[in-house]
């Protein structure tokens, strides 16, 4: 028995306790159970980190879950470097956000429910990252999906919230469908769903093909793409990204935990985890890279014009996730995971700050109605500013290192689309800086544009909310220091620890470029970041009337961006409306009116004559049917005897 098994089960226990006793007994004290459980998990995760850093790789089966013929699935845990990083990310964010929620959710009627869902989510996410087989991964995958659904629809009596929950659930089903098939194909191919045998056998099957619908499909590509389907859904990539912004209907801690820091990164984790498979298929990698790049650009452009505080951050999340996929796609899994890791800190921080702002504004989300909040909420302002600097890639902060790593890997990697995605990445870096600071300037600077009542009510959030902010802020600054690129690191005598740490699992492709090129890439990214900030300053502080004029001028562009490229409408047009139309016209209009009517009137008349003879057999008395069955058995036995 390994005590690391407690990491996921402590939150599960908290969930069980809360859901059973929360309503009647714990009530306002529900958070204690959850926080203690998650904090204990965090402690265990840290000890796992130490353990793994010492060179151990922990892989054990806790309990055999299912055993049927050759199919064996167990509840088992694999803790390697990748898992450990994820563990740290998940438990840290989870703990802090649990604490934050104490203040944020105070006085809510479903207090215990909220915490029990949070705990359940933590459990599922930990099961996901700690799984040592695909089925358990899938279990965790669906578990987090379910919790996400619960938590998005937490305010279930608000229609938009429950709709958003449903949307997230349905959209995810598309991706999970592919993922599920992927797991089947894995089982069919390898005869097992355990990581280790699968990955060790994968290389041997690199060239294998599979006859799929008459086409010979490259097996690894097929598996990789099917698995990637799941990633697209869960990580809100391009065609299936629509659910994430809507998911902001959930409580803000949920947005921070699930829709920024942990769950949505599960897709990236999946790709990284399956890197042995992905690496065997160039096609798949290219698809990953391009999906990531396009999504990041796409989301960033939308983010430029949105007015909803949380949605801007949500689009920024989508964009950053694209970044991570971009990294994975060019083979730089380490960079992707590194960005995942830093991103978790500053994005969670951004969301929590947004929550803090919301708390002060009484639920108001429109940044056009804010302004000058820095006067009232200094802590929030400072932390959010730092997070924005971090995401914009200002040197020294966490975001800078990971982003730079990705861009460099894209530029210098072996991927055929490397240069292209680097270019996109750089543009996105600029856009990111711009919209992040647009947000900052509109929210915290200028004049207050809200109602009097709101202004009167403005205040800094309680301690339980600001302390997690500060802790995360430290993370947003310092988290990147474990991955200082060699270019800088050599000068100050530090290594790229994370890359070395991850090497046994994910490998570490070397960039094919000179120092000069690397310096160039770095400088370009710094420059675009700063210029983005500068432009934002110019447009929103120096010349506040400028955006309005630009909007007037580029009305068409603005409208497209503001309406998120009409993707929702597109889906509505392509899928929803045709379905309704089909139901209305084809099924009712044609099938019912023409065919069924005809059948009802014409055919039955013909058949009726026939059946009136036959119906005497149909007595409706079941003994008669049973007798006929028995006669059948009799005949069967007789034949058997005769033979």
């Amino acid at each position, binding site marked *: 028995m390994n005590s690391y098994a407690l990491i996921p089960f402590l939150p599960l226990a908290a969930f069980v306790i809360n859901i059973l006793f929360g309503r009647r007994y714990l009530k306002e004290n529900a958070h204690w159970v959850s926080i203690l459980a998650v904090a204990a998990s965090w402690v265990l995760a840290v000890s796992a980190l130490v353990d793994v850093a010492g060179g151990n790789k922990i892989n054990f089966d806790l309990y*055999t879950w299912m*055993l*049927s013929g050759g199919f064996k699935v167990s509840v088992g845990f694999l803790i390697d470097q990748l898992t450990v990083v994820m563990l740290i990310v998940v438990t840290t964010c989870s703990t802090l956000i649990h604490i934050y929620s104490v203040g944020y959710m105070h006085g809510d009627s479903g207090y215990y429910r909220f915490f029990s869902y949070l705990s359940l989510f933590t459990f599922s996410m930990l099961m996901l990252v700690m799984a040592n087989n695909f089925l358990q991964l899938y279990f965790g995958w669906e578990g987090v999906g379910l919790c996400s659904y619960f938590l998005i629809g937490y305010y279930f009596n608000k229609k938009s919230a429950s709709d958003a929950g449903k949307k997230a659930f349905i959209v995810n089903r598309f991706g999970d469908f592919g993922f599920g098939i992927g797991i089947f194909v894995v089982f069919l191919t390898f005869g097992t769903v355990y990581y280790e045998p699968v990955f060790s056998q994968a290389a041997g099957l690199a060239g294998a093909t599979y006859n799929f619908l008459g086409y010979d499909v490259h097996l690894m590509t097929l598996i990789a793409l099917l698995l990637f389907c799941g990633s697209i859904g869960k990580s809100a990539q391009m065609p299936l990204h629509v659910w994430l912004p809507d998911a902001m209907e959930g409580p803000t801690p949920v947005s921070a935990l699930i829709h920024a820091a942990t769950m949505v990164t599960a897709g990236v984790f999946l790709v990284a985890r399956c890197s042995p498979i992905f690496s065997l298929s160039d096609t798949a990698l290219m698809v990953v890279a391009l999906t990531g790049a396009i999504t990041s650009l796409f989301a960033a452009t939308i983010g430029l014009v949105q007015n909803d505080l949380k949605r801007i951050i949500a689009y920024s999340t989508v964009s950053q996730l694209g970044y991570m996929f971009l990294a994975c796609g060019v083979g730089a899994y380490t960079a992707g995971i590194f960005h995942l890791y830093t991103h978790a800190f500053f994005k969670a921080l951004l969301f929590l700050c947004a929550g803090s702002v919301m708390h002060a504004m009484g639920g108001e989300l429109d940044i056009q109605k804010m302004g000058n909040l820095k006067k009232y909420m200094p802590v929030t302002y400072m932390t959010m500013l730092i997070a924005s600097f971090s995401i914009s890639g200002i040197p020294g902060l966490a975001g800078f290192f990971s982003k730079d790593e990705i861009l460099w890997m894209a530029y210098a990697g072996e991927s055929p689309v490397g240069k292209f995605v680097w270019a996109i990445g750089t543009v996105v870096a600029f856009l990111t800086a711009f919209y992040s600071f647009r947000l900052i300037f509109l929210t915290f600077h200028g004049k207050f544009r809200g109602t009097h009542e709101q202004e009167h009510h403005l205040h800094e959030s309680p301690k339980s909310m600001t302390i997690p902010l500060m802790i995360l802020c430290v993370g947003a600054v310092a988290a990147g220091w474990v991955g200082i690129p060699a270019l800088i690191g050599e000068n100050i005598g530090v290594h790229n620890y994370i890359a070395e740490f991850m090497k046994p699992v994910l490998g570490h492709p070397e960039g094919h470029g000179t120092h000069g090129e690397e310096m160039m890439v770095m400088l370009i990214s710094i420059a675009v970041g700063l210029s983005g900030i500068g432009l934002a300053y110019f447009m929103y502080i120096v010349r506040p009337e400028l955006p309005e004029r630009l909007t007037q001028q580029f009305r068409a562009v603005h409208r497209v961006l503001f309406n998120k490229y009409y993707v929702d409408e597109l889906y509505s047009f392509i899928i929803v409306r045709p379905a309704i139309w089909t139901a209305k016209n084809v099924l009712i209009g044609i099938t019912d009116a023409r065919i069924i009517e005809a059948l009802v009137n014409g055919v039955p008349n013909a058949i009726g004559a026939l059946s009136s003879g036959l119906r005497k057999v149909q007595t409706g008395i079941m*003994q008669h049917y049973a*007798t006929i069955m*028995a*006669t059948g*058995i*009799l005949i069967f036995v007789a034949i058997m*005897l005769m033979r």
Partner: protein
Amino acid sequence: MLQQLFFGYYAFIIIGLSLLVVTRKNPGHSVMWMLLLFFHIAGLYLFLNAEFIAAIQVIVYAGAILVLFLFVVLLLNLREEIALRQTVGSWPVAFFMCAILFVAVTAALGAYVQGPVGGYSIDVIQNETHAKALGKLLYTEYLFPFEIASLILLVAVVGAVVLAKRKLRS
């Protein structure tokens, strides 16, 4: 000799009781005979060294399933029910068919060939106790069917509740 005697007793009683079960007019009495029948079958199981199955037979069949029957019988309006005709008109046909089928099946027994003997001899089972032996198999080799069975029970429970539930007047 004694074993044959016991078997003879059990077989005789079981057949007699099953005839009583299917021929009684009053379903309540049928249930009572059925109860006795289950005990005898359980006795037969003990005879075959299947003590756990015998216990289950009593607990589940007699203790749970048959009580359900009894409940349903309680709901019937027995007095009217008994007055009605009890069998379908064509019962001689069914009787004839069952008789033939019985003859056919017993005839087929002649073709039985003893297969290879497995590892669970009486001694093994008695050493390990039947419950343990059965449990080990159930929870290892037959775990999946076992879970499916539990799922079936769950579905049955839900289904029964949905079917039999009715709205209470508020």
